[in-house]
């Protein structure tokens, strides 16, 4: 029986090639999207899943006094002390990083980030070794990843090679490469290229760290706790360290501690003060799945609707099979089998689609590496198998029941009340329209957001600024003088912290209210150079000695937090880091970071030149590239041994813009696909209506109906459902896009009414053309001919 069915299926598929192709491609896209959504979701929750002991490894977190939520850092001294002070900790590992220059032999140096940890790190975590030894107990060794080995040594054997780690004059450490590790997977919260013994860590000023230093905060502290029941008790017991920590860090007071297991850590997003990586955000974790589900549903609905509307081609066969003794069950089975064939083909095609799409998707976003291993990934294979079954039922069940239920005698009598435009199929079409609408709204919404972000006013001079990171404070004046001599430079300023390149978060208190705010230490010309606008009061004045110690500038945003209008804030006292400061000026708000983050309050304090780490340079936009290359030349002259770390300020815009553009692109593609699917569904239904009403149309024409009347006659059944579905789709698209925008971007364009109107126009025009083609044919047809045929 199966063989006979298969023959029919294949012959039918071949006979209606165009239709088959359409359904296979539509469903392949739907299934490919589902796999993409599923794998993205799994990828997000695959972080750190490759550590064998992950359930017994805990990360220490710290609550900060006056701040919301828990922080990713942990006081260094507590790590090793806890292991001695309390029971239940088998291993305690410190983990910290710093920027360093790395040089091999006479080659160009690179600016790198090196990681420092305890030897037990490799007992807690699974980072497999490719060559050499994985022991970092020896303080003279460093382990590097394969990628790093390639970067420094090319095809040479890296083992035994010396690397020099240095920073200015304060730090120079020759280390020998004794082991090469496999590249750290992208889905690891712990990322490193160089890893060496913790003892090799030196502070910025070159001093070593004492083991009982309570001022230093770790990027992460890991504890191996064999019995998970101990974790909560230990976190409580850690409270014992609060007083000693607070004494050491008046500016950063711990208020408590927390231990989370590695899986919990991997599941977290948006942990503040977190120097480890994180899984991809919720919007990126669930967004693709939702989108995929929409496309997938649309493809299934399309299959259902086109199958039903084409059912008259199959009726005779169904009737005859019944006469020959087939039961309805067998017919349903046959129809499902047919659908299954299409689905299986679609699944095969979907693997090809994803072969292209997944890498393209990964390319669009940082830190995303979604793959589909169709041969070895059992979960994925199971998902695909379930997808085949569910898709077959979802797409095939309705047509199967619908077509197989007719009585053969009515079929042969030719009196089957043939549907295709019944309520159910209209609802299915409506769903398709809604889905198409959602994707169109999202596509246009994100495209508009991209435009918005491109033109967004960051509140400071973002376009014609160059920045250079100068870690070496001693040579700063020399470098600054070199730059000042470049004729095209219109302004320049040194600064400790720089907009977009990291700021400290401090707790500021005034009017009895405590809250976190960003804290920038800046040079005296910084406000002018960056073109920050003073709304009230004055900027810093180096002539006034008090400005270095007691004065701050605040943004309007911060002033508003305390309920101050611009003028009222002047001379107000704010308590930060155990010091009282008085507000000498109010700045208009500026955006401190990328547009992923919302506008945040900022405090600016004047820093002395010996603390400067950045030089910011201004020129006319047309001179910017020249200035950049001249700056690099000046750097080579002043710091021949150090890699140049310069940047264009507007690079800050790039990532958020790139993300928006990518999402807009994805939505645009999906919108096109769902519109095509909807258009085919609509075309099929309209065709059927025309077919059913051939005689009626002909008769009406004979008695003098105008084309407009025919148009109304044919579209009457669809107009309202289309309108209603569009309204629902508009609302759905609005909600979904708003949700996504807000999840991803702290600052976004939102959704405007014009976006919804545009989307509706797009959809209505396409629907109009689709049904118009068929209607036009119907209107043009010769009525006499159609009546004769009846």
């Amino acid at each position, binding site marked *: *029986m199966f063989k*006979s069915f298969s*023959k*029919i299926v294949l*012959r*039918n598929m071949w*006979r209606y090639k165009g239709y088959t192709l359409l359904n296979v491609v539509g469903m392949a896209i739907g299934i490919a999207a589902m796999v993409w959504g599923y794998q993205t979701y799994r990828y997000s929750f695959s972080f750190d899943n490759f550590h064998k002991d992950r359930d017994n490894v805990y990360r220490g977190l710290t609550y900060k006094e006056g701040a919301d939520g828990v922080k990713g850092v942990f006081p260094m001294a507590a790590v090793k002390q806890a292991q001695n002070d309390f029971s239940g900790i088998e291993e305690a590992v410190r983990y910290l990083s710093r920027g360093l220059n790395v040089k091999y032999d006479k080659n160009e140096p690179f600016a790198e980030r090196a990681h420092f940890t305890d030897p037990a790190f490799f007992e807690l975590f699974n980072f497999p070794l490719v060559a050499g030894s994985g022991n970092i107990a020896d303080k003279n060794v460093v382990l590097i990843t394969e990628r790093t080995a390639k970067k420094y040594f090319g095809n040479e054997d890296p083992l035994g090679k010396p690397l020099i780690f240095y920073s200015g004059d304060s730090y120079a450490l020759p280390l020998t490469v004794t082991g090469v590790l496999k590249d750290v997977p992208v889905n690891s919260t712990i990322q490193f290229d160089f890893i060496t013994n913790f003892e090799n860590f030196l502070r910025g000023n070159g001093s070593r760290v004492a083991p009982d230093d309570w001022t230093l905060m770790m990027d992460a502290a890991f504890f191996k706790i064999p019995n998970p029941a101990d974790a909560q008790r230990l976190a409580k017991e850690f409270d014992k360290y609060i007083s000693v920590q607070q004494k050491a860090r008046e500016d950063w007071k711990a208020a408590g501690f927390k231990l989370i297991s590695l899986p919990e850590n991997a599941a977290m997003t948006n942990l503040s003060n977190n120097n480890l990586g994180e899984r991809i955000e919720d919007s990126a974790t669930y967004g693709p799945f939702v989108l995929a589900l929409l496309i997938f549903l649309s493809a299934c609905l399309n299959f259902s609707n086109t199958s039903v509307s084409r059912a008259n081609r199959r009726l*005779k*066969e169904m*009737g*005859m*099979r*019944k*006469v*020959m*003794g*087939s*039961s309805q069950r*067998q017919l349903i089975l046959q129809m499902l089998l047919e659908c299954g064939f299409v689905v299986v083909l679609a699944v095969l095609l979907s693997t090809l689609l994803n072969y292209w799409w997944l890498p393209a998707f990964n390319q669009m976003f940082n830190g995303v590496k979604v793959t589909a291993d169709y041969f070895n990934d059992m979960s994925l294979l199971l998902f695909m198998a379930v997808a085949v079954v569910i898709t077959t039922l979802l797409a095939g069940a309705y047509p199967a029941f619908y077509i197989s239920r007719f*009585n*053969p*005698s009515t079929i*042969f*009598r030719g009196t089957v009340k043939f549907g295709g435009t019944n309520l159910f199929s209209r609802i299915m079409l409506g769903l398709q329209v809604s889905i198409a609408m959602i994707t169109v709204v999202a596509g246009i919404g994100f495209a508009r957001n991209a435009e918005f972000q491109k033109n967004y006013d960051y509140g400071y001079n973002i376009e014609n600024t160059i920045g250079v990171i100068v870690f070496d404070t001693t040579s700063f004046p020399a470098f600054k003088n070199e730059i000042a001599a470049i004729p095209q430079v219109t302004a320049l300023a040194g600064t400790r912290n720089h907009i977009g390149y990291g700021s400290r978060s401090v707790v500021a208190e005034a009017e009895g209210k405590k809250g976190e705010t960003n804290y920038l230490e800046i040079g005296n010309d910084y406000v002018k150079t960056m073109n920050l606008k003073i709304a009230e009061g004055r900027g810093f004045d180096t002539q006034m000695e008090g400005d270095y110690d007691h004065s701050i500038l605040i943004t309007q945003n911060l002033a508003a937090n305390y309920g101050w209008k611009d003028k009222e804030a002047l001379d107000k006292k704010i308590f930060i880091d155990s010091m009282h400061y008085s507000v000498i000026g109010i700045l208009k708000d500026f955006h401190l970071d990328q547009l992923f983050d919302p506008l945040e309050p900022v405090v600016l304090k004047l820093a002395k030149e010996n603390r400067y780490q950045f030089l910011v340079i201004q020129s006319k936009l047309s001179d910017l590239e020249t200035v950049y290359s001249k700056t690099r030349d000046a750097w080579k002259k002043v710091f021949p041994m150090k890699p140049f770390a310069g940047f264009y300020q507007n690079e800050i815009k790039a990532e958020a813009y790139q993300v928006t553009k990518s999402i807009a692109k994805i939505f645009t593609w999906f919108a096109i696909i769902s519109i095509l699917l909807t258009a085919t569904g609509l075309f099929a239904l309209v065709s059927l209506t025309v077919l059913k009403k051939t005689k009626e149309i002909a008769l009406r024409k004979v008695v003098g109906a105008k084309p407009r009347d025919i148009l109304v006659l044919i579209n009457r059944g669809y107009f309202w459902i289309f309108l209603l579905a569009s309204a629902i789709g508009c609302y759905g698209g609005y909600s979904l896009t708003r949700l996504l925008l807000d999840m991803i971007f702290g600052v976004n364009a939102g959704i405007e009414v014009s976006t919804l109107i545009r989307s509706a126009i797009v959809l209505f025009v396409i629907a109009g053309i689709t049904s118009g083609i068929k209607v036009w044919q119907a209107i043009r047809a010769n009525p006499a001919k159609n009546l004769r045929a009846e």
Partner: protein
Amino acid sequence: MLELKGIYKWVNTGNNRVFLLKDVDLSVQPGEFISIMGPSGSGKSTLLNVIGMLDTFDQGEYNFLHEPVHKLKEKQRSSLYKQYIGFVFQAYHLIDELTVYENIETPLIYQDIKTSERKAMVADVLDRFQIVGKKDLFPTQLSGGQQQLVGIARALIARPKLLLADEPTGNLNSKQGEEIMGLFKQLNDEGMTIIQVTHSEKNAAYGSRIINLLDGMVAR
């Protein structure tokens, strides 16, 4: 072989009840060749469908091979006609996607007959109807007469006890019609019970008995 007693079939349109069959009594003995005749709309095809169990009726009794059809469930009914009844249609109703061979084979598939046995049975029938050479052609490649021949072959393949034919020659020219009727006669001579619906006196003459229908009633 079968017996209809007081069969009624009707449809309700508004307040009116329109009778398609009205108090039909009919008894058919094995080996009979019956022709049902009557003007258009007199209920000929309806009666044939009721006999063939493709259609239900609203009132009356129907015994087929001593089974009370009116008391049977859908499933039992279908297994009954699957086993004992063959159908031939005016429009042939061959499945376009299947070859001649496959069309003839299909009923056997629904009766769970093994492949090897199916092959032998189909080969037999092809031989007997002299259409071996056409077995790999599709219905659209055949003439009307040939298609009807395949239709009859398909109806007979499962060796039914009763053959129902709804205007089997309606779409054929007179020569082809005569051939088909000759074949029916021959089958009847071999013992097959046949009931046909026909407009043609000439075709009816091949049968052993004529039943005239008028407005759903058997004209006496």
